[in-house]
């Protein structure tokens, strides 16, 4: 695990607090001193628990001789790493030099980003006599990181995104916190040169750093809630009010669930804690007084310390971690996690998967439905910041996001984005989205297998048991999906198995224009194709070879194929249902299965 502290001389929360009823003053000594005191306290707590940290010097702190001297002392006495961060750039010196109040490095123009990098790294060198090997911010776009690597090749690690901090975080912050960056991996990764969210596919695509997400998040709660409530950040947990009587066992539960990820990732798991001083304001925050803010931090750090003493945790600085990570990480190796609910008291599980081709999530509460799909294979070049089309929207686009775009349940019209399967008999049809189940994870050589417990589907006069299995072959970029009818109480009944994906594209809750998406069915005998125009057109053909959607807006080809005789179909949507559907279906009697492969690829 890595622990990061930063002397953020003018933290937004403390500064806001101090400004109540007063004019802005970035040099207010009370704020500077309080922030430095908190940083010192955080460092002390880590060291008392036998843990080393990465001190990420903010630009503002480089002008503070006390902050610089603490960093040097702790580097020398405790082995802490001295890195740099682009958080906390705002201070008088920055204002004078750059004439800007912008606080997010990724939102500057590219020209300004270059100037700021040179200024921050130059000032760092002036203070310490060397360049940092780790850096970070809430988000570091690929263009920014590429520039840093070009000018300062010594950099090997960066805090590069905040997992699923997108529209939900924006909403949570009264639509005033512009960290729109959904779509990245939840655990460290080697980013692609083309887009920081994407996992590099090979050496030529490797951007040259190991990226670390800002905080280890709850992979279920944050999918449907604010990121800043649920993670290995004790004050986030206080913000989410996940405590009672000043105790928060939830923090340890998250840490332990991350530790358990060794089961899915060849013996490796990772955790990080990164709390800025603003979260431990002496005047309290999130309905908590300072004593509680402090206690929660001490308790969290004590748990890490205890794990280290037991030999269950290794504390690495960011750069040390980057070296260790690279030593044993083939580019194609996926990151997998079968996450279980540790908050709401359900038994719900979600399976998260990320590799250089895609990131997706399966929800066992919905029979293994795919509720999130990001086409990393497209490696979208999508610069952000002033002067770019995306501007603040730094998210990586989805094809499926069932919470932003309805999923199985829509308000009585149209369809939502989800991948699932329907089992039918005559006029009856049941979607596996309605069949809650649980799953287990296993491996067969280089194939990761997610096996769902069988579910029972009750038709009017008989019932069947259906099992779903997902098989993920490393380096293939495809999801193999098996829907198997295990048995039927009526062996003579015909059963249709209809695998489908209803998708769209976007980065937010709001619909995008689907005009021009090409839907194609390719069979052994013929091909049918249409360009999306909201006309409700449908088509199906026998002996399907593949059903495809080319989505030029996100340069992605989405396709489904099967290895057995089956019918393929597509459905165009309409303006009140801005979705497209691809499907493959076949009929079996009593027993049988449908095996399909879902793939995302770069369109051109």
């Amino acid at each position: 695990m890595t622990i990061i502290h930063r002397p953020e001389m003018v933290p937004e929360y403390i500064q806001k607090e101090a400004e109540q009823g007063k004019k802005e003053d970035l040099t207010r000594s009370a704020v500077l001193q309080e922030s430095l005191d908190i940083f010192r306290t955080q460092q002390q707590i880590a060291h008392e628990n036998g843990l080393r940290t990465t001190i990420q010097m903010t630009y503002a702190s480089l002008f503070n001789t006390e902050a610089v001297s603490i960093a040097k002392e702790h580097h020398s006495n405790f082995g802490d790493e001295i890195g740099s961060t682009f958080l906390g750039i705002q201070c008088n010196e920055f204002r004078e030099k750059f004439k800007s109040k912008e606080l997010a490095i990724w939102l500057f123009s590219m020209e300004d980003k270059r100037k700021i990098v040179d200024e921050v790294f130059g000032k760092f060198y002036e203070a310490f006599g060397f360049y940092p090997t780790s850096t970070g911010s809430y988000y570091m776009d690929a263009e920014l990181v590429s520039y840093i690597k070009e000018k300062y090749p010594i950099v090997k690690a960066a805090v590069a995104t905040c997992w699923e901090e997108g529209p939900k975080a924006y909403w949570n912050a009264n639509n005033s916190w512009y960290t729109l960056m959904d779509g990245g991996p939840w655990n460290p990764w080697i980013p692609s040169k083309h887009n920081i969210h994407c996992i590099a596919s090979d050496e030529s695509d490797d951007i040259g750093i190991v990226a670390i997400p800002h905080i280890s998040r709850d992979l279920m709660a944050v999918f449907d809630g604010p990121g800043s409530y649920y993670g290995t950040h004790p004050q986030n947990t206080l913000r989410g009010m996940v405590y009672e009587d000043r105790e928060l066992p939830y923090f340890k539960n998250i840490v332990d669930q991350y530790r358990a990820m060794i089961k899915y990732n060849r013996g490796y798991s990772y955790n990080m804690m990164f709390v800025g001083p603003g979260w431990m304001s002496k005047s309290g925050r999130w309905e908590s007084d300072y004593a509680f803010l402090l206690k929660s931090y001490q308790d969290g750090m004590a748990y890490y310390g205890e794990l280290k003493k037991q030999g269950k945790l290794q504390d690495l600085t960011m750069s040390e971690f980057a070296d260790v990570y690279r030593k044993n990480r083939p580019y194609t190796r996926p990151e997998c996690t079968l996450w279980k609910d540790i908050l709401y008291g359900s038994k719900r599980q979600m399976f998260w998967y990320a590799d250089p081709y895609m990131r997706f999530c399966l929800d066992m509460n919905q029979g293994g439905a795919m509720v999130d799909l990001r086409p990393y294979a497209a490696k979208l070049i999508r610069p952000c910041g002033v002067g770019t089309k995306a501007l603040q929207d730094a998210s990586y686009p989805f094809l499926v996001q069932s919470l932003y775009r309805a999923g199985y349940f829509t308000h009585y019209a149209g369809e939502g984005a989800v991948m699932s399967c329907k089992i039918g008999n005559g006029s009856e049809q049941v979607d596996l989205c309605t069949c809650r189940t649980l799953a287990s994870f296993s491996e067969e050589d280089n194939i990761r297998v997610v096996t769902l417990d069988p579910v029972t589907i009750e038709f009017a006069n008989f019932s069947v048991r259906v099992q779903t299995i997902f098989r993920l072959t490393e380096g293939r970029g495809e999801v193999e999906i098996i829907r198997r009818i295990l048995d039927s109480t009526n062996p003579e009944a015909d059963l249709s198995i209809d695998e489908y994906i209803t998708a769209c594209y976007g980065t937010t809750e709001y619909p995008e224009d689907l005009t021009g998406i090409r839907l194609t069915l390719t069979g052994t005998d013929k091909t049918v194709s249409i360009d999306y125009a909201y006309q409700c057109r449908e088509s199906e053909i026998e002996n399907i070879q593949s059903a495809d959607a080319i989505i030029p807006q996100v340069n992605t080809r989405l396709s489904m194929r099967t290895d057995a005789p089956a019918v393929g179909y597509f459905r165009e949507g309409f303006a009140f249902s801005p979705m497209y559907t691809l499907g493959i279906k076949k009929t079996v009697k009593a027993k049988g299965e449908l095996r399909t492969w879902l793939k995302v690829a770069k369109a051109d």
Partner: protein
Amino acid sequence: MAQGRKGRLNYRCPRCLMREIDMDMLYDKDKDEYYCLRCSFTGDEKEVQRLNTQFREKYLDRMIRITDF
């Protein structure tokens, strides 16, 4: 009526919190009550705390130490 100020702690509006919006409230010292600039919530500290307790109830496992993964 004097301006609203920050209260003893940064109490967020409990009604906005229910819909996961963090909205700091202002405190009216003359009436000893908090009020929200976004929704129509008005209430004293006790009422805010009562609603915050209600908010926490959705976390059924908030006090359970889970070690089986």
